[in-house]
């Protein structure tokens, strides 16, 4: 059996006296699509943020492509080059145009020439269906467009794995679909991804596995069909009844 691309072992994380993660074990195989869900404060954002070293864990071990994230800044940098991340608040650089946003990291971090980076930027803007917005500034775009730019920006690094941290939570309802469509297309293309989301529709459509987190622990881990039809834990049932009732 192949090695998992992300391997999380017994990870603990405290914020002061609050324990955000309490012994997480999780493996993600190449090409696998994982959806992480759970009530707010359950530690799901912290978990994905640990996967590219934005948070440092207090105990346990995470390896990405066999690189240990605890191995110092060089290791973290190497991991980040192969892991793209999309944030809830987009975090586009507001002082740069869309194209500049996309080209910055490929030129500065991967050493691509400006021309190559621009070509790459065009390619991924087309992939998220907004090639015409290249010259605009982020704040001139709608929320949905901004998030799609953010996805394209992460893709421009041609990562092996994509992490999504509640990509649609900051969006107005009418813009959620355009972003979900892009994510679903990526999934269909075989990208390995870990996605924190409340969108159960997305989870049902694309996830190979749903991981349900509560109070910093994995309560349930199952394929969507099983997860939605026959949840084992009471906490999962409670959670599902709350978000699916209307």
């Amino acid at each position, binding site marked *: 059996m192949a090695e998992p691309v992300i391997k999380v072992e017994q990870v603990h994380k405290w914020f002061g006296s609050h324990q955000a993660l309490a012994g997480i074990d999780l493996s993600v195989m190449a090409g696998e699509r994982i959806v992480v869900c759970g009530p707010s404060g359950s530690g799901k954002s912290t978990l994905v943020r640990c996967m*590219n*070293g*934005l948070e440092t864990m207090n105990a346990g071990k995470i390896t990405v492509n066999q690189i240990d994230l605890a191995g110092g800044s060089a290791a973290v*940098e190497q991991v*980040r*080059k192969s*892991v*793209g*991340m999309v*944030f809830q*608040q987009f*975090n*586009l*650089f*507001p*002082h*740069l*145009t869309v194209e500049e946003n996309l080209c*910055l*990291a490929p*030129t*500065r*971090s991967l050493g691509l020439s*400006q021309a190559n980076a621009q070509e790459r930027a065009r390619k991924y803007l087309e992939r998220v269906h907004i090639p015409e917005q290249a010259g605009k*500034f*982020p*704040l*001139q775009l709608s929320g949905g467009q901004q998030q799609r730019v953010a996805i394209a*920006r*992460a893709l421009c*690094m041609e990562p092996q794995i994509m992490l999504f941290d509640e990509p649609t939570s900051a969006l107005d309802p009418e813009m959620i679909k355009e972003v979900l469509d892009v994510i679903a297309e990526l999934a269909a293309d075989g990208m390995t991804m870990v996605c924190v989301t409340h969108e159960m529709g997305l989870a049902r459509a694309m996830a190979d596995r749903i991981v349900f987190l509560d109070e910093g622990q994995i309560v349930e881990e199952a394929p969507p069909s099983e997860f939605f039809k026959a949840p084992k834990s009471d906490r999962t049932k409670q959670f599902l009844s709350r978000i699916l009732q209307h």
Partner: protein
Amino acid sequence: MVAVAVVIAGAVWLFGNTLDNLANRGIASGFSFLKSTAGFGISTSLIDFSEASSIGRAFWVGLLNTLLVSAISVVLATILGFAIGIARFSKNWLLGRVATVYVETLRNIPLLLQIFFWYFAVLRALPGPRQSYDLAGWFFLNNRGFYIPKLEIIDGGGWVLLGAVVMAFLAFWQCRHKGISRSCAGLAVLLFISLLAVGSVSVPALTGFNFTGGTVLSPELVALVIALSSYTAAFIAEIVRAGVQSVPRGQIEAADALSLPDKDRMRFVVIPQALRVIVPLLTNQYLNLTKNSSLAAAIAFPDLVSVFAGTVLNITGQAIEIIGITMAVYLTISLTIAFSMNIFNRTTAMRGLSS
């Protein structure tokens, strides 16, 4: 109505007093004094000036000296201030602490005291020309001032140079947009070559008891520039720190997630956004620095206040005209700086931030 009447009556009373006083003391009024002969010399001057020059010319000498000191100090203070402000975020604990101590020390000591310190305790206490501190054989520091090499340009060379500078500037502008750094470097080389073609460098050298060649910056000028720029740098460093801290955390996380190297993260993500907070505050510091340059009067560096509101006022006694002109000049400088920084703010610092 009553208020207006009182104000007018008061003004008439003051005006009457003033006329009486001027008449009693035999003080002339009007601006004709500007045309009369100065009768005094000025130690540092960017334009030709002698005792036979007019007082009006003395005014320009003073104003140019004020602008010279302010301009040099603004540049140095900005560089030093940004370096120290960014150093406060250094991963190196020692560097961060040194930067903090610098800021807290310099900004809590009166500027005038710092000027005195640099002038009387440091520069005037330096050894004479024969025991000068020698920096690489090009720069010499002694109690007569700071001797630096001077660029001497052949006749007509100035135009060539100006052309080269304009060309380089335009090309740089282009490069900046297209991000081609190599051709920029090429242009810099071209500029350097044209410089070599029309100019030669005169290096100061000790002959007998003093230096010849090069050019000398007077101890007053050096003390003033050091004090003004190091003092203002402390305030700029604080502003830079506030600006950097104002950049949302998410921006830094996004840069990290893209594995942008630390220095690029600072240069391309943090600083450009911090500028939005920094620039308006920086404007204030530039204004303060320019106004503070008037402390030159305390060490007799011939700036506008020292020459005009000092020497000229003593000679002519025309306080109202002289103080009026001096204040008007500073107001004009203030407004000009504020205006141009506003333009910079709109075009550069606020880029992309107003939709």
